[in-house]
C-alpha cells in the first residue's frame, strides 16, 4: 500500500467520500462539497468562456480579421434581455443561432435518421436477427397507428409492438444500470488504487 502524496488526489478522494456520505444520510459535509462543486463548475465555465472568446474572436480580430466584430456584437446583444428597454434586441442573435443550428442539422439528418434507418430495416430475412428487426419495426410502428383503435385479431400486432418496445426499454435500462455501476467503479478505482495505492 502506497498512499498518494499528490494534494489533488487527496482532495478528489476526500470529496468523493464526502459525496458518498449522503447514502447514509444528509449531512453538512456532503452539502459543503456539493456547493463547492457547483461553484467550481460555474467558475470553470466562466474561465473557459473568456478563453474561448479571446482565442476565437478577440485575438484574431486584433490581428486584422475585422469581420469578427459582427459575431461579437451579436453575442453582446444576447445580454440585452437583462435591460427591459432594449430586451427585444436579443431576438436578433437568438434567431440567427436558431436558424443556423436548424440549417446545419438539416444537412444530413433526413438521410442519417430517416432514410438510413429505414433502409436498414429492408434486409434479407435469412436469419433470426433479421426477422426480429423486421417484425420489431413493423409492429412497433403499428402500435403508434392512432387514427383508430385496433381491435379483434389485428390487435395482436400492436400487442407485439408493445412487447418489442418493452424489450428495448429493458435493454436501455440495463445499459443505464451498467453505466451507473461503471461510474461507481471509477471512483472506487480512484480511491483504492490511486489514492490508497492498494
Amino acid at each position, binding site marked *: 500500500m502506497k498512499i498518494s502524496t499528490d494534494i489533488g488526489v487527496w482532495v478528489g478522494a476526500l470529496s468523493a467520500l464526502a459525496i458518498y456520505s449522503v*447514502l*447514509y444520510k444528509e449531512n453538512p459535509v456532503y452539502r459543503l462539497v456539493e456547493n463547492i462543486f457547483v461553484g467550481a463548475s460555474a467558475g*470553470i*465555465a466562466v474561465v*473557459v*468562456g473568456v478563453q*474561448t472568446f479571446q*482565442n*476565437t474572436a478577440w*485575438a*484574431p480580430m486584433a490581428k486584422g480579421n475585422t469581420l469578427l466584430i459582427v459575431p461579437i456584437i451579436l453575442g453582446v446583444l444576447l445580454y440585452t434581455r437583462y435591460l427591459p428597454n432594449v430586451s427585444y434586441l436579443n431576438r436578433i442573435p437568438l434567431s440567427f443561432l436558431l436558424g*443556423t*443550428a436548424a440549417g*446545419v*442539422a438539416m*444537412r*444530413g*439528418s433526413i*438521410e*442519417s*435518421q430517416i432514410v*438510413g*434507418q429505414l*433502409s*436498414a430495416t429492408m434486409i434479407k430475412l435469412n436469419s433470426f436477427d433479421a426477422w426480429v*428487426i423486421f417484425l420489431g419495426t413493423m409492429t412497433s410502428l403499428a402500435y403508434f397507428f392512432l387514427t383508430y383503435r385496433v381491435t379483434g385479431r389485428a390487435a395482436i400486432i400492436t400487442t407485439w409492438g408493445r412487447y418489442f418496445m418493452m424489450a*428495448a426499454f429493458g*435493454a*436501455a435500462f440495463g*445499459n*443505464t*444500470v*451498467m*453505466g451507473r*455501476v*461503471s*461510474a*461507481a*467503479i*471509477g*471512483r*472506487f*478505482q480512484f480511491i*483504492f*488504487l490511486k489514492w490508497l495505492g*492498494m
Partner: protein
Amino acid sequence: MDIFEKLQNLDKRVFYVLMALAIAIPTVSPLGLPISVEAPVQQTYNFVKNLPDGSRVLIGFDYEPGDEIDLNPQAIALFHLLAPKKIKVVAISSFPAGPMFADECLAVLKEYGYKYGQDYVNLGYYAGGEPTLAAFGNKPTSIYSKDWLGNDVASLSLVKELTSMKDFSMAMTLNDGPTGGTGTHEWVRQAVMAHGTPLIMGCTGVLAASNMTYVQGGQCKGILAGLAAAAQLEKLLGKKGTGTVGMDAQSIAHVLIVAFVLLGNVAMILSKRRQKAPGGGASR
C-alpha cells in the same frame, strides 16, 4: 411483519454496503473472470486495424468527468491499436473538461515515440456544438487559433496538413450524450453525411441501445459501449488496462443487482399469495 415483508422493506443502506463491497473487493483483488469479445467490438477492432498506415484520425473527447471511467479506457485501448500503425491523431472536445481527458489518454502515444504537433495534437475545447463541428469539417483551422497547450496552431505541422474532414481516414467520438456538447447524432451528420468520413462511436453504456441503430444501418463502422467494450478491446490487444480491472467489479455488481431484483419480486409475489390465502392478511 413476516420475512417477505421485511425483505421488501429492507433498509436501502444495506444494499449500498453490499454494493460497495461488491465493487471494492474485486477492485483491490481482481478475480480474473473471463471476458468474451462481442461482435460490435470485433467489428470496430477489424475496421481500425485495416486503416492505412500513417493516415490521420480525428477523435472527439465529448464527455464530462462522470463518464471518464467508461470512455478513457476506450480511448487508451484505441491509441494502443493506432500507434503501431503510426496513425496521426487530432483531438478536439466539445466539453470544457474534454481536453484534460484527451491529454491524459494521448500520453500513451509518447510510449510509441509520437511527437506533439507532428504526430498528434490536442486542439482543445470548441464552443457551439454542431455548427462549430460543421465549420471544423469544412476548414479545421477556422475554429482554432491556439491549441490546448497555448501553441499557435499555425506552428503545428499536423494542423498545416489539414484542409477538411475528408483528410481523416476515420473520425471517432467518445461521447456521453448530447447535453452541452456535440452528440453522436451530430457526428453522424457532420462526419459521415457531410464528408463521407467513416465514423466509430465510443459511448457510455446508457447510449448503447440508441446508437446501435447507426451500426446496424451501416452509417457507423463500429461502436464501443461502456467499460465492457474497453475491456474487450484490451483483450483483443493483449493489454490489460483499467477496463479489464473494472470488469470483475462490474460482473459482481450486476449479479448482486439481479439477485436483489429477483429476491424483491419473489418476496412480493409470495407476500401477496399469503395475503390472499384463507386467514392471511397484512400484519399491522
